[in-house]
């Protein structure tokens, strides 16, 4: 069906593990920022649980690339390989949900394919795909509820979907070390997201899916401004007290 990817080398596997691990770690941290700030208690719990799933994935993936703590806490911004979508600030609740919708739809397609393959990611993917199915479902329910709800919810959800649209092209760029080409996931992603937005009464954004310099380079270590602030907070404790234990 698609091009047969060359047998991945160990270095490529580590690179891919870093990229996917950074996606999970950074999104987990963003969702963690909502603790104590979610609109209702159930959402507080839901977002924390999703963050925890992602953190578990991140720990396994980063351990495939090196020492998980060193990688999480001691790298500079330019050394992170996550896509720019996951580092975008939580914004209002609609932005958080739009980010979840775009990312969890992608991650579900990705893990589903990886689980069917024979790469070193197959085991984790087979486990995580079942968790991510719940993340995607959660995002879908909220997209429908906000988009097809009140005028304010509809307007805000539409605005959020449009604002994050330009970060979605990067998800499908080639990534060495996987036994698949992420570009192959794109048609299913567009169909799935388009279907949900349609049912929510929201227009599929028509802007470009990659920006000039602002989007499309997270995998190369180029990040958007909010990411540095996020890292400073995430790494501050570990860097201030090197080697400290509980």
């Amino acid at each position, binding site marked *: 069906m698609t091009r047969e990817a060359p047998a991945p080398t160990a270095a490529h596997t580590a690179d891919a593990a870093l990229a996917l691990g950074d996606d999970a770690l950074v999104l987990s941290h963003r969702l963690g920022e909502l603790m104590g700030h979610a609109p209702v208690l*159930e*959402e507080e*719990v*839901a977002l*924390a*649980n*999703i963050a*925890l*799933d*992602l*953190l*578990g*994935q991140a*720990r*396994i993936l980063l351990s495939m690339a090196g020492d998980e703590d060193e990688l999480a806490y001691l790298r500079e911004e330019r050394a992170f390989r996550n896509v720019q979508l996951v580092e975008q600030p939580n914004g209002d609740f609609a932005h958080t949900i739009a980010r979840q919708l775009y990312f969890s739809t992608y991650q579900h397609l990705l893990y589903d394919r990886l689980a069917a393959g024979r790469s070193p990611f*197959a*085991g*984790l993917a*087979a*486990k*995580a*795909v*079942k*968790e991510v*199915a*719940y993340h995607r*479902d*959660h995002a*879908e*329910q909220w997209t*429908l*509820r906000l988009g*097809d*709800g009140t005028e304010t919810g509809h307007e805000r959800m539409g605005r959020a979907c449009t604002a994050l649209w330009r970060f979605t092209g990067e998800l499908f760029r080639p990534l060495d070390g996987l036994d698949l080409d992420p570009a192959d996931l794109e048609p299913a992603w567009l169909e799935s997201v388009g279907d949900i937005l349609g049912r929510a009464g929201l227009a599929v954004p028509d802007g470009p899916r990659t920006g000039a310099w602002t989007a499309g380079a997270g995998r190369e270590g180029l990040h958007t401004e909010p990411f540095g602030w996020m890292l400073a907070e995430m790494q501050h404790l570990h860097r201030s007290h090197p080697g400290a234990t509980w």
Partner: protein
Amino acid sequence: MVTPTALEAELFEVAGSVPDPELPVLTLQELGVLRSVRLGHEDAVEVELTPTYTGCPAIEAMSLDIERALHEHGVREVTVRTVLTPAWSTDDISDEGRRKLREFGIAPPRTVRDAGPVPLELGPTRTVGAAGRPCAPSAGPGTGPGAGQTAPDPVRCPLCGSADTELLSRFSSTACKALRRCLACREPFDHFKEL
């Protein structure tokens, strides 16, 4: 697969009888997370444990508890390894485990077999047991109204047994549970969601 020796089977029982740190009514064996116990050289035992969820924070407490139980049983050296493959599923929870969950006030997971996560009903708001929905009391057990779909059994209230329950949130006190409410007795309850 190597057949475990009598001693290994005994040690499996010991490790398997350790209670789950978050759901202490269940043992690790009933939860289905203990994969194997192997005896190596010189009294060294290797245990394989699988997490329920990738990020399950209880796995470290489980490992420590297993080590302690085996030490108390006279094993000198214990290594607990976490394995991901094959992935744990709620189908791995034993019948006895399901019974204990219900008794503890948690609705046990429905069987999913190879179907993956049970698709939850879609709708913009809370899923109430309205007419025609799989959780309506009229829906017979094991069947469902789905045309060509394998509709799941209703999630029954663990307190009063009613099948008329609604989903409040897909995520609850831990990653493995969803929060529901019984429409008959009005009590909220946790549901060990299918994975």
